[in-house]
């Protein structure tokens, strides 16, 4: 008898340990569980009448507009952090500001067609990213230093370039439509309307970055240099070129975010990406929360996307749970607490299971 109970106890213990192990080592599983927990919590609160407005699918869908810049910059950080050797990009927010001004000039003042202005902005973002990549990969700057320096430089240029004035000419104002929600075709009446920016910017970016990382030889090289750049060199991989391009791609993504941000504000603001906390900090937070290892070589697109959803829906709920600007304050608490929690969890996981998957 005693043996039998002991065995069942052990096996339930094993099951529990297995679930724990999966949650700790599989970041995707943990994030999925947390998202469900967050959504259920706010649904329950909503049902109990504790929220200032209904937290339903329509609201969740509308709040996705905030996911667009966050996820795109999170993916930019994913690329540079993956490249290893302390890869990080503090300048993404400053690139958003500066590239946004360029977009403002091209589309708002020079009268370029929209597509040409977007291409120009993306290329300009690539150029700014290339400066980072050159300093880090070819000169050997620590990424933190190089991007701190360019953060200052780009931030300054963005403000000086148009005498601190935002650009909000009529064509720019009309761009606000990117942030509006649209009804999906075919089955649109059965599901909530979705912000247009999700389709025009976020989904293409997610697919492109996923393709790049999971399906191309470049993606393989990036993971390889991030895992062990000495072995990558001995395998004949172009280490410098690969790392350089990671920063260029991060610049392109930042340039696209600049377009989104201009649309959202209906104005090209010189401080768009650096005001308040800036955009780099949340982006890095999203990446780390999404399971990207700061040491390089580990991290997936799905992790970043789920981490974005978690933060966006958590923030959306917090906004309804508090009156006035208290909501935005508690969003900081949530972001900080979740990040510290995730980081400590990573430390624990490394000690217990010897690495995350």
């Amino acid at each position: 008898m005693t043996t039998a109970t002991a065995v069942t106890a052990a096996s339930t213990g094993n099951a529990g340990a297995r679930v724990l192990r999966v949650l700790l080592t599989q970041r995707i599983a943990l994030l999925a569980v947390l998202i469900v927990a967050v959504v259920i919590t706010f649904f329950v609160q909503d049902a109990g009448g504790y929220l200032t407005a209904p937290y339903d699918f329509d609201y969740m869908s509308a709040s996705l507009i905030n996911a667009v810049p966050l996820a795109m910059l999170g993916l930019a950080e994913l690329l540079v952090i993956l490249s290893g050797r302390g890869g990080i990009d503090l300048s993404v927010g400053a690139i958003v500001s500066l590239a946004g001004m360029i977009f403002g000039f091209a589309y708002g003042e020079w009268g370029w067609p929209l597509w040409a202005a977007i291409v120009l902005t993306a290329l300009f973002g690539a150029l700014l990213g290339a400066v980072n990549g050159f300093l880090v990969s070819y000169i050997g700057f620590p990424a933190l230093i190089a991007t701190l320096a360019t953060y200052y430089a780009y931030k300054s240029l963005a403000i000086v370039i148009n005498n601190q004035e935002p650009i909000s000419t009529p064509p720019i104002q009309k761009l606000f439509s990117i942030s509006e929600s649209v009804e999906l075709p075919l089955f649109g009446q059965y599901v909530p309307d979705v912000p247009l920016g999700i389709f025009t910017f976020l989904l293409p970016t997610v697919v492109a970055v996923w393709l790049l990382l999971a399906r191309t030889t470049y993606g393989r090289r990036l993971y390889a240099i991030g895992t062990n750049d000495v072995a990558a060199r001995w395998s004949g991989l172009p280490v410098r070129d690969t790392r350089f391009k990671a920063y260029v791609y991060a610049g392109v993504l930042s340039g696209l975010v600049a377009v989104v941000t201009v649309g959202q504000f209906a104005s090209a603001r010189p401080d768009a990406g650096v005001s308040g906390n800036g955009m780099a900090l949340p982006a890095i937070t999203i990446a780390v929360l999404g399971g990207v290892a700061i040491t390089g070589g580990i991290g997936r697109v799905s992790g970043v996307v789920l981490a974005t959803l978690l933060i966006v829906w958590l923030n959306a709920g917090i906004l309804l749970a508090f009156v006035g600007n208290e909501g935005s304050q508690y969003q900081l608490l949530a972001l900080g607490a979740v990040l510290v929690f995730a980081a400590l969890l990573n430390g624990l996981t490394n000690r217990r299971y010897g690495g995350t998957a």
Partner: protein
Amino acid sequence: MTEQTQTPRLRLAGIAKRFGAVRAIQEADLTVRAGRVHALVGENGAGKSTMIKIVSGAETADTGTIEFDGVPARIGGTTDAIALGIATVYQEPQLFAELTVAENIFLGRELKKTGRVDWAEQNRRVVELLERLGLPARYATVTVGTLSVAEQQQVSIAKALAAEASVLILDEPSAILTDAEIEVLFDVVRRLTADGVAVVYISHRLDELFRIADEVTVMRDGRTIGTYPISELTVRQIAHLMVGEELSDARPHRRVPDGPTVLELCGLAREGRFHDVDVRVGKGEIVALYGLVGSGVSEIAAAVYGIDRITGGEVHIDGKRVTPRSPAHARHLGIALLPANRKVEGMFGFQSIAFNISAGQLRLLSRFGTFLDRAREKAVAVDLIRRLAVKTPSERQPINAMSGGNAQKVVLARQLVERPKVLILAEPTQGVDVGAKEEIHRLITELAEEGTAVLVVTSDLPEALRIADRIQVVRGGTTTEEFGPDATQVDLLAAAAGGTA
């Protein structure tokens, strides 16, 4: 001599040590006397490093007794060894580059005066120590990062001695030094023995033992074969004791092909590393470059592969002169290389086997050079896993969960995705178990049969003899003698260790 009757400083008897199923040491004795330099020699894997670890407290012996000055002693950890006055200097200096020499020596046990570090006193003692070692006193206040490797090693010795050591263990100190630097080292050692310190000196370079050692203990297969006054032996005799009497392992002699020359190195040189290296490898031939650690043999491989710049001489592939600029360029020229340091230079630790295999040939495994052909990647990985008999449930396993031998096969597989024209293998079986070693040797032979020109760079003597059709001995940074497969281990060792006697 009177010393023979003295109580030995340190005596180890009947030492045995197992690691799992591996018997690192079966039966070893070592007696070290004050004021003497005691050499400890043996082939790779003979048990020298385990002996050192036991003496320095890094490992504990399973059986056996240790006596210090005639009194039974227990060395349960490094602190015990240090308390007894046993100091060890390892090959790689473990120093803080940004701190001064004096600080390095006193780190963690600084001399203090009214709350602050007593620099003057620390400095005085370090200068004293340096003078005792015959080293320049100006070292004391210099930051370690500005010193050369040899100078850093001298500092390591000083650091070891700062704790009043009476036994000093030097683990292959000469491997990384130039001849002039070795003279300085010997001078330091002689001063120490004159002061009554017992020195245990481990070296692969047998010729230098005759200049520094008083007696020598030879190890083979985890046993100490015997201890002899150095004056009674020649390099050849020591080599004989190290490799044993038996002839080189029975090896199925393969017909040595007489193919056209594929790889030829003519007077190859890299300043300060090696010079006048001449090697020729024919199609289907296996040539071994055999040299001791520090002989320059590993640097030759790195230069041919485009990692290091060549400063003189020529490399020819199929009779055409080439200059490998980078590993990528070398691969383009048809040269593949299995790196010597598997963990650092070979493995993508937490990535899968398939990832590790395809990393070197991504273009080949892609569509339009851009998109990874994952089906092909998997097929190639599965095929190579089968061909190389890698033991794994699937190609998706991470490589760092595998044994040394299996991981080495995976790194080797990376070189074989496309059959290379020239395959260079640096220490192909280092840290690999016996079974995997056999298999890797078999694979190398098969590759040669298929027409690859193979250059094995090794410091493993039996390996060189077992698989090579010809053996080039490298000594002092240059190729010296060439041997056929019928050479004996003693011949090779004597040639590499510098004994003409």
